């Protein structure tokens, strides 16, 4: 056969076809399934999480061995560099966190106090972690209601005591997307707009 053996038509379909009962049923069924799936996820979606503050802490409190603990710490540092809060000046950073450091881009990021770890996401067979070692910081602005709270890079509050076990949604343990301040827009597309009086339908070919 020289053609695709199978194409997932449900994925390709953008609108239900009202004149086609079979399709209508399929769509209804998948909506119903979706609802069930969501509610299961809501019951089952939180994990017991610890904040790991050192390699010793990691070896004591988790299933990881020393080498794995060191690697986890390293990855958390990289994540902190990537997704941690960033400030132009050290003063700005230290007005919110008591200790900050300059990163490779010349801006300032708070020093992480540890990273999140859930034993349940560690796969002993493959020695792989099914989440991300997301960094945790301690918020320090005086008189703020958040003073002394543990906080993740995207602002999720954990609590004060890093020895506690926290319950977090699985989402919080996943790798975070990076966001940045967009300083300008519209730097692509100008050539097309100059030529647009000619193109009827496409910038492809």
């Amino acid at each position, binding site marked *: 056969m*020289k053609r*695709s053996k199978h194409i997932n038509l449900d994925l390709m379909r953008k609108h239900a076809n009202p004149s086609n009962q079979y399709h209508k049923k399929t769509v209804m069924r998948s909506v119903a399934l979706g609802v069930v799936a969501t509610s299961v996820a809501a019951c089952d979606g939180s994990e017991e999480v610890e904040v790991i503050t050192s390699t010793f802490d990691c070896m004591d409190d988790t299933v990881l061995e020393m080498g794995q603990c060191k690697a986890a710490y390293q990855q958390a540092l990289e994540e902190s560099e990537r997704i941690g809060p960033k400030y132009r000046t050290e003063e700005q950073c230290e007005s919110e966190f008591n200790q900050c450091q300059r990163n490779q881009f010349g801006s300032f990021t708070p020093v992480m106090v540890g990273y999140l770890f859930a034993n349940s996401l560690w796969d002993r067979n493959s020695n792989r972690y099914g989440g991300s070692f997301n960094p945790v910081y301690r918020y320090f602005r005086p008189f703020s209601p958040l003073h002394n709270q543990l906080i993740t890079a995207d602002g999720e509050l954990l609590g004060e005591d890093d020895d506690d076990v926290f319950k977090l949604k699985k989402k919080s343990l996943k790798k975070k997307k990076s966001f940045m*301040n967009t300083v300008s827009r519209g730097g692509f597309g100008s050539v097309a707009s100059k030529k647009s009086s000619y193109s009827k339908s496409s910038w492809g070919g």
Partner: protein
Amino acid sequence: MLRRPIAPRINWQQQAIEYGFKFHTMYGQTYWDESAYYQFTLDQVERDIEAPTEEIHQMCLQVVDKVVHDEQLLRKFCIPQHKWDWVKASWQKKEPSLYSRLDLAYAGQGHAKLYENNADTPTSVYETGFWQWLWLQDNVDGGNLPRSSDQFNSLQEKLVQRFYQLKQSQPNAELHLSCCKDTEEDRGTVQYLADCATEAGISTQFVYIEDIGLGSNVNEGASKNVNASSKLCFTDNNNQVIDWLFKLYPWEFMFQEEYHPHLANSDCRFIEPAWKSIISNKALLPMLWKLFPNHPNLLPAFFEDELHLASDIPSLVKKPIFSREGANISIIKDQQEITASDGPYGEEGYIYQATHLLPKFFDQESNRTNYTLIGSWLVDDKAAGMSIREDTNRITQDMSRFLPHVIV
């Protein structure tokens, strides 16, 4: 290779709504045309289209390898000097390609001849990979075509497999897909590729080319003095960093636009990779002819400063180096230049290719003669399918009709 009339499926327009195929008719003209189909033998497809397609692709890769190492050639290919290192690096790092489409002139016998390579921003991928596949399925199911009918079209299957491979090297990466505003066709094309990526388990986002922003790594919105040397990232409408971008937008445009200095500085990876700018370029054609003279699938082709070598060729087609969708093509015969299509290209220079007209197929119903072009698809380096475009004009352009095909 035959052109055969067939009754359009009664419900196809309804089905187009259901599957979100919005550009089957554009500006009141038919684009998707299922009033006829082209019929091929398996031999014609495998011997004359599939095998040469993979061979031509390998020849094109040899052109890339030659050009990236030669400043004079980079100049001839109109790659701006400030992008030479970056284009070369993308080739040396073997940045992966997704897909290409070769345009071939083929009449059912003899050698298919390469017109050009759409290696950077090929369109009509949805119509090929999905819509004509569905057409065949429906017509076989409805008893209008024999059960044994096949199609040279594993495009969707191969795209999904390719996305799956690309995912393995970066399991968590999210893919942004992008095209220009105000074009239903491009938006549909990009949506299709997003669907294929989703099928492969990749999470996707969409951003218009014009909306792409520059993100600074610093809080408090302070970085007003953006300069080319600072480390910046491309961002989408939600200020999310774009790590991996499919752009249905030509490299040669991006190379001259405001954000071009940040292409090399950002960590963003691109589909298609930057080295594709060399083979989506019409300068490819004279270069292929130089490296593989008299290859049966090539037409003689020349750079502007080599026209003396073309003195014994009776008629030449003059193509701008960056032309798309058949724009700004003219035919030169007896030292007379006849403009055959207008458009916005040409200031970058031209190449010349020996004239080899498309085969003609007569349509009795409309009493029209059609010129027929074959698009032969590649996913990475594998031939993956075929599309047919037809026009009453000798030059295939963006409004030329798309017709399905079968192998019998």
